[in-house]
Each structure stands twice: as structure tokens, then as C-alpha cells.
């Protein structure tokens, strides 16, 4: 523990939150003051605000909306931009944040996804990308067919880190090639029509580092290999790997330290070979 800060612990923490009441509404900043306690994280600060939602000036306001579940950085729910950096709020310790900036903690929703309310964003596109790259093992079914293919320790050690991706979206927030898509519902459009139009828009846009990495994970599995071609099709299709500018911002922010640039490199190689093969097989 960095003992020096112990003496300078404040009585109050100032928190500045970028709020938005709903989709398409203007955003606005609001300040809150929360009594300091040892061992707080951003979640416990938000819990305190929820229990007593008043601004720093004492004005009662609607509580701030946010998402979380596991509180131990494995579910991926609680992503937000904290002091300008995208990360999980459950593992964002207040003492550390105060070392960065003793005066204030700043919370913003991720900017690459439509805001639902306050710090809650709609990450449907992120999950949709997993469908696009068919991120699953194409087993015949769930009857007992004996064990899976035998695998080496090395193969497990390569797959495991990729398999820890918790769909948090940090890598997408940091990626210069991943830009926000926010559709507005047309007048008279039904739920289904709107949904279809939205998915179509998502399916044309950049997949993102997380999905590229998942494609590689499943392509490297002995059974997953069987439909590698379908995944590679998705990677060379619209919104595919060609959009990646190799800026490597993604890997720098991934809270699970997933070797995304390695996956992207492998995806580049696999798609090149695949495209060549496709060309000559024509």
C-alpha cells in the first residue's frame, strides 16, 4: 500500500458525473459529494449516491443509473470512462483515483455505444458481433458422446486467455476504428422493423477486437476449426478485419490483458491464406 496518502485522506470525495436522462436527450454534468471511507471503489460511491441522491449543492435529483453485477471484474457489466480512461468501475479503487486527482473523480458513460441512461449504455452491437463470427463450437448436440478432443497443455494455455473475454467493451471504446452507431426510430416503425434495421447497421460496421479475438479462439479449437471458413468469411466481409488500423489501443485497455494484437495478427494471416485459397479454388 502506498502509505503516504494515508494521512491526506479527505473527508469528502467530489464526484462529477456526465448524466443523460434517456436516448436522444442532452447530456449534462452533475456534481456529488460522498463521505470518504477506506477501501471504497467506484461502485460503492455510486451506491452511496443511490441511497441519498442529492447534488453537491444539496438538491435532490433522480439517482444515477449504472450497471454492475459480479463486483469482482469477471462479468463485464460495469464498464465506464473514469477520469478519462475506460475501465471496470468495480476494480476502480477510490484511493488510487484520488492519487491521480485528489480533487475530483469523473465518471462518464462509454462513448461508442448509445446511452440508455446516465452511465448505462446499450452494448447489443458487441454481442451481435459474437453471432457474426459464429463464436461457438459446432457440436452435433448435447447427448453423451464421450470426451472432447484431447488437447496439449500448450493449446490450453493459448486458448484460456482469449476465453476470459468478458464482453466489457473497453477495447471497443479505445479503438479509433470503432465508431458509435445510434439509430433513431422512424415514425410508424414497429419494434421488429426497428430491430432489423439496427442489426443490419451493426452488421455492416466494424466487428471490434473482442470479436476478432473470439474468432481466433474458436478457429484454433480442434472442433471449432470445422467451420473456420465461416468465421473467416465474417472477418473479410464488410466491417471485417481490414478496418483495423493496428493502433493497438485495444490491447492497452483490456482489463483481462487479452493478447488482442496477437489475435489480430493471427486473424490477418488466416484471412490472407483463406482469401488466396478461395481465389485459386474458384
Amino acid at each position, binding site marked *: *500500500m502506498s502509505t503516504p496518502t494515508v494521512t491526506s485522506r479527505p473527508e469528502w470525495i467530489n464526484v462529477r458525473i456526465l448524466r443523460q*436522462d*434517456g436516448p436522444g436527450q442532452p447530456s449534462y454534468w452533475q456534481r456529488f459529494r460522498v463521505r470518504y*471511507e477506506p*477501501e471504497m*471503489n467506484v461502485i*460503492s460511491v455510486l*451506491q452511496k449516491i*443511490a*441511497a*441519498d441522491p442529492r447534488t453537491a449543492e444539496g438538491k*435532490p435529483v*433522480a*439517482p444515477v*443509473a449504472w*450497471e*454492475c*453485477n*459480479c*463486483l*469482482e*471484474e*469477471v*462479468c463485464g*457489466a460495469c464498464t465506464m470512462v473514469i477520469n478519462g480512461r475506460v475501465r471496470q468501475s*468495480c*476494480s476502480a*479503487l477510490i*484511493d*488510487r483515483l484520488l492519487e491521480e486527482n485528489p480533487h475530483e473523480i469523473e465518471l462518464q458513460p462509454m462513448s461508442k455505444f448509445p446511452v*440508455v*441512461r*446516465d452511465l*448505462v449504455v446499450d*452494448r447489443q452491437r458487441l*454481442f451481435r458481433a*459474437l*453471432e457474426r463470427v459464429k*463464436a*461457438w*463450437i459446432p*457440436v452435433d448436440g*448435447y*447427448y*453423451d*458422446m*464421450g*470426451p*472432447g478432443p484431447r*488437447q*496439449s*497443455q500448450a493449446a*490450453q494455455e493459448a486458448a*484460456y486467455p482469449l*476465453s*476470459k473475454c*468478458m*464482453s466489457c467493451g473497453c477495447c471497443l471504446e479505445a479503438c479509433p476504428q470503432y465508431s458509435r452507431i445510434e439509430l433513431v426510430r422512424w415514425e410508424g416503425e414497429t419494434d421488429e422493423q426497428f430491430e432489423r434495421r439496427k442489426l443490419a447497421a451493426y452488421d455492416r460496421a466494424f466487428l471490434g477486437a473482442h470479436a476478432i479475438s473470439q474468432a481466433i479462439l474458436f478457429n484454433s479449437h480442434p*472442433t*471449432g476449426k470445422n467451420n473456420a471458413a465461416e468465421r473467416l468469411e465474417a472477418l473479410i466481409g464488410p466491417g471485417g478485419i481490414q478496418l483495423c488500423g493496428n493502433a493497438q489501443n485495444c490491447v492497452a485497455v483490456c482489463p483481462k490483458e487479452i493478447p488482442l494484437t496477437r489475435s489480430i495478427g493471427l486473424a490477418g494471416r488466416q484471412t490472407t491464406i483463406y482469401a488466396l485459397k478461395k481465389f485459386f479454388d474458384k
Partner: protein
Amino acid sequence: MAQQRVMVVGGGLAGLSAAMKLAELGIDVDLMSLTPVKRSHSVCAQGGINSVNDQTRQEGDSEWKHFDDTVYGGDFLQHQPPVKEMAYWGPRIIDLMDRLGVPFNRTAEGFLDRRRFGGTLYKRTAFAGATTGQQLLYALDEQVRRWKGAGKVRMFEYWDFLGPILDEDGVCCGCVGQDLVTMEIRAFPADAVVLATGGCGLIFGRSTMSMSCTGSAVSRAFQLGARYANGEFIQVHPTAIPGADKLRLMSESARGEGGRVWVPRKPQDPRDPREIPEEERYYFLEERYPKYGNLVPRDIATREIFNICVNEGLSVEKDRMCVYLDLTHIPRKELDRKLGGILEIYEKFQGVDPRTTPMKIFPAVHYSMGGLWVDYERTADGGLKIGSPRNHVTNIPGLYAIGECDYQYHGANRLGANSLLSCIFSGLIVAPGIKNWLAAQKKAASERPASLFDQAVRRQQERHDELLRRAPGGENPYLIHQELGDVMTRSATVVRHNAQLREAIQKVQELYERAKRCSLSDTGNWTNQNVVFTKALLDMFPIALTILEGALARDECRGAHYKPEFAMPELKATDPVERRREAEQWCDRFEENTRRWLKTTIAQWIDNRVVLSYEDVDTSLIPPRPRLYGLVGAEVIEQVWRERQARRGQPAGDGKPAEERRPSQQVVRS
């Protein structure tokens, strides 16, 4: 008949395996969950999943032994046929998860690696790094996503289950849900509803569980007539990291690798722990249990840590109970090699390096053995009849419960790494039974009169609107939740006393009345987390009262339920004859207690209060026997017990039949 559908509520391991299996059987599935299913609480499980395997088999292990360890660990409180069936399915379930791509750790030769967990002598536990639950959940999530793409599964993520819909005959024909974004309330006609909504740790305020583990869904079924069984059995893990928001698990391996538990002899000694000299430290586990030291069994460690803080006032901190778990005497290199992963968790969340500063830990609520009462159909040889619509159905026809929210597999105490198994198992076997249930229906739920569904929606809409309309200035739901958690943690966790339980029941009833007067800080109808939480809080009370009433009524010690007033004595005499006589008495008392208390507690919610009754337990496969681990005089008691059972012609041990039956091929492949 119109197309039939099944609604699965909850997308943890149990819900996802049910959804996936139902889809494979050709059934249309709706899947509703508070969170995206990939973010369900099951991701938190670190340790692993149990099954017999080729290696343990050659060391003398068998499905039967896994079955025996499970019922012995659970103090015989579970019906044995479902547990037996689960143990026999264990290897097949691991095989299936392996085929689905779970990156289980491998041996050098490429087989699945295994570790040993508590409550057994065999290395049964398969694991994937330190995130087994996450890896298992992802494999199932991926399969369900595949079915979604194929149009077989519809997802309703960010939806709150508000209750089942029952027809005039009390048959479940759907449920009401609320969209957490738009706050729309609507009915989902369904020909069967499966609850897979996990545990209820939030009733205790903070626990090792996730924020969605409120038990609200189960409570809503309970309040409409579903029975709740063995509520009083709550597992408390000895070592968790107390946090302002959550109590995060600290693996037992920290003690396994030489961690020492202590408190300063001077209450709340303000000095830095590293400055407190050896003789002013109280290594209470080592002093009290010289033989086992810091590695006393889980329940004893839990009780002693609790006792030192609560009764002896020696907690390290004044406002918060905790003791030191000290690894600082072990070389850093060794720690990194053996405990790297878990020490990083501590460091990440506490901002303190446990290699140089003693960790602060305290027991925390971890698992609920109790849950919705569910039925099963037994075969002649004591297994489950796969395909029976009775398997996992609650007392409400058409309403099923699986996973941590049912009560079926763990009796009075769950063994480590058995829960992931029971979740996947129950999800897989509920599906063929539901298929047969659907086949027996004459009418699809969607063909029922609209009024049935409209009425159910209207009732929920009224409840919702009434909450939003409340004038400000009433009670604060978040503060009431804290108070509820405090009362429950104090009275209904590690050590239980009847006087305290009585007091707690009264206090919780008062809190319930106060909670009914909550007013909201958010009265809007868009992503209103305030009203969702308030409803969940209100629904915690019936389950909280069930836990307390069950604990008060049960005057004995069994598994996780410990009442010192009713503890079985240790043997005191040193003279062999006298000691033998004491052992005889001990066994008499044990038998008497078995007759009186080896019963499932059944709770019902009638006229806004808990009504208890008891049901016999099917222990026909393995006769109950005393759990003697760590008890003084265990050898003599064991001796007496064996002789008694021999006289009766009953097995004294695991009751394994001479020629162990293998399940028939038909069962294997179903």
C-alpha cells in the same frame, strides 16, 4: 394446437443448460434475465466442478463414492435418488463441457487435470484456471447464442420476472415480466416456466454473491403458493475479504499454503500489524486446535473466527469484524508461485500487497442450500426416471425450478465444486421431462383467454404505479436493506441462538412493515433502478422470514445449521469402559435426533406469514451415519456405531451394494 413455448427465467449455468437442451429437443424457448446472460453470477465460481474420472476410478473411486461424499457432506438431508443420478452423470457432464470448448486445464499428456477439494479424498475437480464458472457459462452462452441465431430461442435480457401466472386450477401458464429499460410490464404465455434464478445472498446485505442474487424471483413464486424447502441452511465461507460493496472470496488455499490466522491480544490494537510482536498475537486456531491448526475444517474455522470477533470482541477493527490472515512469513517467491492468482485479486481490490501486509478476512454468506421445493420420480434402483415431468417441478404444476434456487442436491451443507455440477445437471434433465409435460397438455398457453394474462399484468402494473405515486419522505429502501442485512448476518449465519432468532424475527417483521412505506427517489418510467430495487427488497422479506423461522424451529445441529445449545457432546471419560458407555449414549442420542430431525423443512406463505411443516427424506440407499470429523472420541463412537449397524444387518459406511450397478445404456445416452 398452437405452438407451445417454454419460459426459462435466469441465464446462469442452470438456465442456459436448460434452454440449450430444450432447444435441442425441438422446443421453442424464451429466456428472461435481469442481466445479459453472459454476465450471470455463475461467472464468479473459481474453484471447479466435480466428477469421478479415469484416474480416481483406479484409485478406488466410483460414482457411488461421489454420491456418498455428497450426502455425507450434506448431513443426509437430501433425497438420495436425485443425488445418486447426479453423481452418475458427473463424468458425462464434464465430457460434454469439454466438447463445448471449455478450456479445462490439461495434464502434460493432454488429459483434463484435476485437483482435490474439501470433503473428499479424491482428485475429482476439473478446473479452468481460476475462472471455472466463467468458462463453463461462456460455453453454454455460446450454444444458446447459436440457437438464438437459428430462431429457436428468444432472449429477453434486462427483464425482471414479476411472478408466475396461474390459471383457476393453479397450473402455471406463463409469467409476468418487466422491461428494465422501458419499464413495460407484459405477460409471457408459456406452457412451462423454469426458474433458474440462483441464490439469495443479498438478503444478508453483502455476501460473496453478485448484485442480482436477491432471491426476488423465487420469493414471487413463493408468495403465490410455491413451497420453499430447507431455507435455514445457508453456507458461510470462512475467509472472504470484507469490502464496502461486496465480500469477495479468499480461497482456502491461502491457509493450505501456510497462512496463519490471528488477532491482536489487545482488542483493536491500533498498531500496524507488522509492528505487533509475536507474544501479543493470538493465533487462536493454532492454540485451540493444536492438531489441525489453521487447517481445521471449514465450518469450525468459520465458527471460531466468528466467535473471536462477536463474542470475544477481538476483531481487528472496531466498526467492522475481521481477523488477520497472514502470509508475510512466507517468501515472496514461493507465494507467487503457489498463490499468484488469488493474491492478485486481493491486491486488486484492497490495494494492499498481501505478501507484505497481513490480509483482513471474515466469514461471508456464500451459498443457499435451501430453495424452492421440487419433486422427482424415482426408479426402482434408486435413480431418477429421466423424462418424468415430475423431475424438478415445484408444487405448482408447470412451474419448474433448477440450479441454486432449488433445494434438491446439497442437503444441509454443500461440498465445494458440487454446485456447478448440480446446476448443469438439473438444467439438462429438466428438459426431457418438460417435453413430456408439454405433450400431455391439451391446449397451448397462448390459446388461453386473454383475460387471464391481462389480469396478472394489471395486478403488477398497479403495484408498480402505486410505488411510483408514493409521496416523498418515506422510508429509504437502501437503508432498510442495510438493516435487514445486519440483522440476518448477526442472527442467522454461523452460530444461532433461539433467543436471538426470536428477536430477529420480530425485527425483520418491523423492517418489513417499514419497507412497505418506502418512497422512491426516482418516480420516472425509464431505466428506473430505484423501483426495481425496492420491489426486490420487499420480496426479500418472505424469504428472510423463512430462513429465520426454519432456523428457530430446528433445535439441532446439522451441516451449516449450528446451535450450540443442541450440539452433540464430545466424549470426556478417559477410562475405556466409561468412555464406551458415553459412546453408547452418544449413539442413542444421535439416533433419536435422526428420528426427530432428519426431515426436510417445508415453508409456505399463507396469509402473509411463514407456515412450516416437515417431510421425510428418502435415505433408502445410504443409511445416515454420524459425521465425526474432528470430534473428541470419534474412534469409540465409530466402533459402537459399526457394531450397532452390524446387529441390524445395515451397512455402517457408504452402503455401496456388493456389485456396483452401472447405469443402463439407455440412461447414459438420454
